């Protein structure tokens, strides 16, 4: 067993490169899906209108599609419609689009629970449109929803593992390569799991920091 782990150690560069890809991919998808989700939430909180219907349809469609299937659709399906991404971008687009639906839902739920007074003050002081959203509406939403958003980011990290099926060289893909090359499944996969834990702990720490900022404003 010690021997198995020393084989994984010898292949550490492959593992680290997979880790970096997972971190970068997750970071891009988390940032992108949070921004898209914020935009989406502005439509989801409306009760009538084309934007609201379209946003609701998108959110429901994403939430009821298995992520693996959605990734297949983006990578293998879209080229037959003439849209072609390489593996990396197909993965990034799939993760971002899929999780923006969840982010949108999270922010919508927090939004409707916010007290109406600060928003009304925003109107009264001359804020309108995007400026009203960005300066008055969004910041309290982010503070209140930080734990749930953090949870969703962890979900993004874990879903990125599916992208091994489109040959994206992320962490799971790296572990899988090491095990098939050297027949050390336990050591290779445990090493990957530990690295996923490390990523998630880091995210939790970030959520903790935002949580303390939110606490001082409550």
């Amino acid at each position, binding site marked *: 067993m010690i021997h198995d782990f020393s084989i994984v150690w010898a292949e550490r560069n492959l593992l680290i490169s997979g880790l970096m890809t997972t971190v970068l991919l997750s970071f891009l998808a988390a940032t992108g899906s949070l921004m898209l989700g914020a935009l989406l939430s502005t439509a989801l909180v409306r009760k009538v209108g084309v934007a609201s219907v379209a946003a609701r349809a998108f959110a429901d469609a994403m939430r009821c599609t298995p992520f693996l299937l959605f990734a297949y659709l983006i990578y293998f399906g879209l080229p037959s419609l003439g849209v072609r991404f390489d593996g990396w971008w197909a993965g990034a687009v799939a993760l971002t689009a899929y999780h923006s639906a969840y982010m949108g839902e999270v922010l919508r739920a927090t939004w409707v629970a916010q007290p109406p*007074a*600060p928003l*009304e*003050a*925003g*109107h*009264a*002081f*001359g*804020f*309108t*449109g995007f*400026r009203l959203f960005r*300066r*008055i509406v969004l*910041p*309290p939403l982010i*503070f209140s929803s930080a734990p749930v958003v953090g949870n969703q980011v962890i979900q993004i990290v874990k879903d990125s593992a599916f992208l091994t099926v489109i040959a994206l060289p992320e962490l799971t893909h790296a572990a899988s390569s090491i095990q098939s090359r050297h027949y050390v499944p336990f050591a290779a996969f445990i090493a990957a799991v530990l690295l996923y834990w490390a990523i998630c702990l880091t995210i939790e720490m970030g959520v903790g920091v935002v949580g303390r900022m939110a606490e*001082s*404003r*409550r």
Partner: protein
Amino acid sequence: MTQHTHTALNAASSTNPVLSVVSLSKSFGNLQVLDNISISVERGKTVCLLGPSGSGKSTLLRCINWLECPDSGHVLLDGKHIGVTSGGVVMDAHELALIRTRIGMVFQHFALWPHLTVLQNVMEAPVQVQRRRREQVCEEAEQLLRRVGLFDKKDVFPARLSGGQKQRVGIARAMAMKPTLLLFDEPTSALDPELVGEVLAVMRDLAAEGMTMVVVTHEMDFARDAASQVVFIDRGAVVETGSPDAFFNNPVTDRAQQFLMRFAKSLS
């Protein structure tokens, strides 16, 4: 000649009030909340809107800056229409927002922005909406906070303040816009009794300084000694209007007499 000009100016100021509300009506469903209300406020005056709960005072105040849309009637700030033009065309959101920056508002439940510090609350609209220079705004905001006695709290978040402190920040925030008109929507109704005084003191100070203010309140002492004019509203209509002296000592209408009597009783 000088005499003549002076008279002309006086005539102009009396026919050109800062705020005119003309024949304003508003219903929520079948409930007529405001019925053909007209009031006008001269520059530098403090007008107190008094009346029983549910009489429509707060709705009237909220119709002035169009947080509620009146069903009919007009609101004019310095002779310019708010919300709809004289032809009845509804203004677009940006035009309305531009006018709103000239009307400061103080809310019953403070409505401070919870994610911003006290100083940031005061600076937010002047910097973000009025696009004034940050350094200049910061200086003015600190000055305003000194004036309401909260300079030492400038880096604190609103959640850490008492109700009275929050409301004083609310007033500083409204003043930072350098508004033409200040609206107060029951500014002391959500406060513990011992905190009411500190807020009223700031308001008295502003009134004495010549700020033009419309104040919805149940604080009769404030209306009596700080108001230039009292407007008594009941069941959505203006019942009586006059100087505080006349209103409190010699109310003309039965309803005003009853209102004041009930108030006197509740105090004793």
